[in-house]
C-alpha cells in the first residue's frame, strides 16, 4: 500500500488554511455594506461604466498560451527523468537533450514569428 499519510497531512494543512480564510471572508461579507446601487458601481474614477466588464476579452497572448500547452507536456517527462538521471547517466542526458532540443526548436520558431509579442 502506498503511504498516504504525508499527503493527507499536507492536504489537511491546506484545507485548514483555506477554510479559515474562507470563513473569515464570508463572515466579513455578511455584514451589510453597499446597500444602495451607487455604492456597488465598479470604480474607474467616478463615472459609472456603460456596460458590464465581463466581455469577450481579446486575449492577445493566445499564441503563447497555445505554446505553453504543448511545452508544459515536457514537464511530465522530466520529473521521472530527474529521478533516474544519476543512475542512467549519459543515456538519460542524451535522450532528454534530444527531446528538449526538439521542443526548443518550437520556442525558437515562436520567437521568430513574434508569438511572444502582441502590443
Amino acid at each position: 500500500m502506498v503511504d498516504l499519510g504525508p499527503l493527507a497531512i499536507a492536504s489537511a494543512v491546506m484545507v485548514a488554511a483555506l477554510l479559515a480564510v474562507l470563513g473569515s471572508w464570508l463572515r466579513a461579507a455578511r455584514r451589510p455594506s453597499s446597500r444602495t446601487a451607487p455604492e456597488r458601481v465598479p470604480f474607474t474614477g467616478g463615472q459609472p461604466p456603460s456596460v458590464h466588464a465581463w466581455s469577450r476579452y481579446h486575449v492577445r497572448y493566445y499564441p503563447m498560451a497555445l505554446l505553453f500547452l504543448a511545452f508544459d507536456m515536457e514537464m511530465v517527462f522530466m520529473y521521472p527523468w530527474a529521478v533516474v538521471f544519476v543512475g542512467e547517466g549519459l543515456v538519460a542526458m542524451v535522450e532528454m537533450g534530444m527531446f528538449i532540443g526538439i521542443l526548443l526548436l518550437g520556442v525558437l520558431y515562436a520567437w521568430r514569428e513574434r508569438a511572444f509579442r502582441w502590443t
Partner: protein
Amino acid sequence: MTSLIARLAAGSDARVFAIAGAGSRAAVQDLRLADGVELVDSPRAADVLLVAGALDPRHHDAVRRVHDALPHPRASVRWAGSRDVLVPGAAHVALGTDPSSAIRAAHQALMHGTMPTEPPLLPDEDPAPWRGVGPYGQGGSGMTGGTPYGRPMAELAPDRDGLRLDLLPTRLGPFSSLLPHGLELDLRVSGDILVGVEVAATGLAASATSASLFIRALTEPVSIAELEIGRARDHLRWTADALRLQGLRALSLRALRLGLHAAPGDHRAVERLAADIARTGIYRWSLPAADGARTELLAGARLGPSTRASGVGEDERQADPAYRSLGFAPLLGAGGGAAAAWRLRLAEAVRSLELAGRGGDTRSAVTGAVESPRGRLALGDAPSGRALGLLPTLIEGMEWGDAMATIAALDIDLDELGAVTAGTSAEAAA
C-alpha cells in the same frame, strides 16, 4: 477585546482617497509625506475621503459616486477655501492649512465608533430598470440582449487581429489615480490594447486660477533663480508621480521630498537620485520603446522635455537675452520616447538648479511666452492643451500599461491650462 481592536485600529494610518480639485494638486501630493496618512489609489481601500480644491457642479455627481464607493465606516474631509455643501457632514479644513490632523481625527473617531459612518449621497436607483424584466427577472433577454442587472453587455467590433471580439468601453476619470484629476478619457479597450481614445472632459473648475510662477512670468519679469528652482521642483514632483506609477514608491517619496525644498545646492542630490532611478532598470524594461511616428508628433509640439528628448532644440529660454547672458543652452536627448524624456527631465532638474545658483538677481527679459516645465507657455496656449490634443493619437493602439506610462510622461497640468485659457476668455470678454 473589542476595545483593544478599536485602539489598535485607531493607531493605524488613515487611508485616504484624495480628490484633487482645481489648485490643490501639489498640496494633495505633499500629503504623501504626512505622518499617519496614506494616500490610496482606490476608494475601496480608503477610510477617509478628502475632497480638495474647487470643483465645478458638473463634477459633483462624480464626487458623490466616489464617496459612495468608500466602505463603511467612512468619513470625509473637505479641504477648500470656503465651506460648501458638496459633501454634507464633511469636516472643513481651509486650503493652505494642513488637513492631516483632521484626517487622523476623523479616522480615529470612526475606528472608536464615536462618529457615525456617512450615509450614501446618491439615491438608491438602478442604472437601468431590470428587476422583474426578462424570463428570469434578471433584466436581460435572449443571449446577450437587454440590461442584465442594470447594464448592457459589451458589443462585438472588428479588430486589427482579424477577430471580432468585444470592445469594452471604459470611462477613466475624472478622479482616477492614473490620470491628472479632472481629465476624463473615453477608452475603447480590446483585450489589453486601447483601440479607441477620446478626451471626454478636461478641467476642474471654470474659475481656475493659478499662482504658478510660470504664469506670473507671462506678464512680468521674474527672477531666473526663482524660475529655475520652480522648474526643478516641478520636474521632481513629476518624477515622484511617475515613479509611483512604475511601482517604485520609496524612490517616489525621495523624489517628492527633494522636490519640496530643492535649492541650488541640491543638484548633487538630484544627480544621485537620477543615477539611482537609472539603476532600477526602468529605462531598460519598464517604459514603452520609442516609436517613430509618435516621436515625430511630440517633436513638433513644443512640449518641453518630451520634444527635446527627440533632439529638437525647441526652448523659449533661448530667445531670452537674460538666459543667454547666463550661458544657457537647452539640454537635448536623442531618439525620443518615454525613457529619453525621463532622463531629460532629471537632467534638466539638475541643470536648472545649477542655473539658479548662477542666476543671482537676473530677471527674465521676455514675457508673453515662457518655457514652462511642460513646454512653451503663452496666453491662451498652454502645453497641456497641445498635449491633450495629441493624447488620443499617442496612446491609441498601445497596451494599457504603456499607455498609462505615456500619459504620465506628458505631464498634463490642468490648473495651468485652465489659468491660461481662462485668462484669454476674460480678455476676450473685456
